[in-house]
């Protein structure tokens, strides 16, 4: 199959085949980063703009590295330094970037749906690097890529996602991606952090961490952002650690080869003990490495699709 989308807004919209295509493309890009000269000319002459409305180091840097290894030119715009502070709207900012003849906007925004709104107003590609509580598709793709690399397949796996599900775009994207590929997903959190009706997304819900770990082939541990508890629904930090944190003791009761993932940055001693983070089951640093390959694949595919669309228009 061929990739035809100029944007990547979320995994909810994608078919199983489309997700698999990104993963296979990422496989072939992965070895670029192991070469002496870590660069291919796939996006030479293209400009990628990282438009980040939220502070982010790891995702932004990952996209930047990915774009540069594809030979694209990269511009980083952060809200602190842009005219966004002067009240420019998202759509105006997007149109200005388009007028600079950029090819891809990678957007991180604190409002759910921001990437979708932007994509309606620009003709260039839009890649969602996280919108509010909605989706963070490239994070889920790199999680899935890593899992597949470790366990050989996704279909039939039991994957548990633990933490603040309610406010997590990583959780939502993982749920869509994993279920589409045939994994069985369990979400585990204190009741207040489980969003309404989430079982309708095809997941099992539990408030018991041991239950979540008991038959899991992998556990994806979300960062607990205690500093951002706007709604005052978080349990106390110590209480959370006691009841939900991934510790060596808890892992002893789980499958021996359980894969432990975390999107980072880790709060050591909050959602996960240091021993687990640095332990044999942890693939956290591999996730970071794979993030480059997955983002290279996404940038490459959307750029290619956009070029095809453009050629089509030219012929018409």
């Amino acid at each position, binding site marked *: 199959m061929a990739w035809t989308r100029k944007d990547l807004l979320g995994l909810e919209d994608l078919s199983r085949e489309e997700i698999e295509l990104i993963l296979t493309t990422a496989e072939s890009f992965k070895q670029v980063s192991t070469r002496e000269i870590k660069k291919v000319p796939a996006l030479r002459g293209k400009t990628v703009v990282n438009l980040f409305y939220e502070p982010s180091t790891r995702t932004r840097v990952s996209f930047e590295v990915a774009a540069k290894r594809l030979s694209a030119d990269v511009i980083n715009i952060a809200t602190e330094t842009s005219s966004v502070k002067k009240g420019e709207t998202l759509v105006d900012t997007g149109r200005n970037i388009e007028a600079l003849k950029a090819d891809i906007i990678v957007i991180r925004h604190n409002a759910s*749906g921001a990437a979708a709104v932007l994509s309606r107003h620009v003709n260039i590609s839009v890649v969602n690097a996280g919108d509010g509580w909605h989706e963070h598709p490239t994070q889920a793709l790199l999680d899935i890529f890593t899992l597949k690399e470790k366990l050989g397949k996704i279909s039939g796996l039991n994957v548990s996602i633990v933490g603040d599900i309610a406010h997590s775009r990583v959780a939502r994207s993982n749920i869509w991606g994993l279920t589409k590929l045939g994994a069985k997903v369990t979400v585990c959190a204190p009741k207040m952090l489980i969003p309404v009706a989430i079982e309708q997304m095809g997941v099992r819900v539990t408030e018991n961490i041991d239950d979540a770990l008991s038959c899991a082939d992998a556990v994806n541990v979300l960062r607990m952002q205690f500093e951002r508890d706007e709604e005052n629904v978080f349990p106390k930090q110590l209480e959370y650690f006691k009841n939900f944190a991934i510790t060596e003791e808890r892992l002893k009761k789980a499958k021996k080869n359980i894969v432990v993932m975390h999107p980072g940055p880790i709060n050591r001693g909050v959602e996960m003990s240091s021993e687990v983070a640095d332990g044999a089951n942890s693939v956290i640093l591999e996730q970071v490495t794979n993030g480059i390959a997955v983002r290279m694949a996404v940038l490459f595919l959307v750029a290619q699709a956009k070029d095809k669309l453009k050629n089509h228009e030219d012929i018409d």
Partner: protein
Amino acid sequence: MKILIKNGRLIDPACNLDGLRDLLVENGKISQVSNNIKADADKTIEAKAMIVMPGMVDMHVHLREPGREDKETIASGTRAALKGGVTSVLAMPNTLPAIDSVDNIRLLKDIIKKTAHANVLIAGSITKGRQGKELTDIAQLKDEGMVAISDDGSSVDNKELMLKALKDAKKHRVLVVCHCEDKALMNKGVVNLGIISTRLGLRGVSKESEYTRIKRDIELAEKADSPLHIAHLSCKESVELIAKAKKKGIKVTAETAPHYFSLTEEAVLGYDANMKVNPPLRTKEDASAIRGGLADGTIDAIASDHAPHTENEKDIEFERAEFGVIGLETMLAVSITELIQTGLLDWPGLVKKVVLNPAKILGINKGTLCVGSDADLIVVSPDKEWLVQKDGLVSKSKNSAFLGRRLKGVVEYTICNGRIAYPFINHT
């Protein structure tokens, strides 16, 4: 001016009229309704295969003037009304300033007098500045012509104050229109709370925030023995509460808006802020309960809740966009498409919802084809299809929830106070 309308299907349940007749308008009044009228008219309208019905009375309209003329004006809003077949609107008081004093109502009346193209009825606010703290002077405002009070956009949280407002309103024969929403239960929500809010990662508004406030206001109306009108019903529980109250003999009436019986929360997928309304679009089950309430008479009226907003306020991040959609120009067509074509209501039934009942609830002398009454009427091609497009809309704002939809039912003529007010003669 004499206008003769020939061969239309005249519908007005108020005078038991449903059949092919001619109708003559003379000096602003309906002077004759019968078979085969011969008259020397200034204008003759051939209405074969068309519906002739009283002009609609839309009891929930935001005209935005004074204060937000960038969204809508009395002039542009009443033109939109005429195009949609609405000849009388109740203008909501959440303007800048709010309609909460004699000075402000006089200011509004002056603009209406100078610029309105259709009949504009005035609602004042329940509390000063719509702050929910101090009641307005209902007696004074009534003397200035106000017909209803509402803090629309918010609910009066203070129970004692609301009870007093209901008692005052009863004394002065002014209708109380309630926007029922318990802010404490709103959770800063922007869509219905449920699977869709979860999928979209948006804050959800529970149905509870609506129906618990309806329950409270019904109890207060019962206590005050005062008429109470509930605005924009959106969910099943609300319909059930109204039905129960009516059965009990409480003087409560209710309206819904076309988007609540024709759209569901799924329309929000894709983050189109033209689907962002308050209360939010609910589930299929709720939309079906709203249709049921219309069919069985629990819901008395359909009103547009016409709420114009500029593109800058709508075409942005969903959670930051304003609530509300325009509706004057699509109310009839959506009702025809969703209620008549589906067999849920017949024509006399629809005329009750959009004309008779709202006129009765407001206590105004409008909305009938009976001989001698004001000539406010519309001629409609019921099966003619049209595409809702920004370009075709005459409202100053284009935030319709029905853009891109094909609807049935086109208003061919609107006669307002005895004059052909639509089609517009010139483009002003």
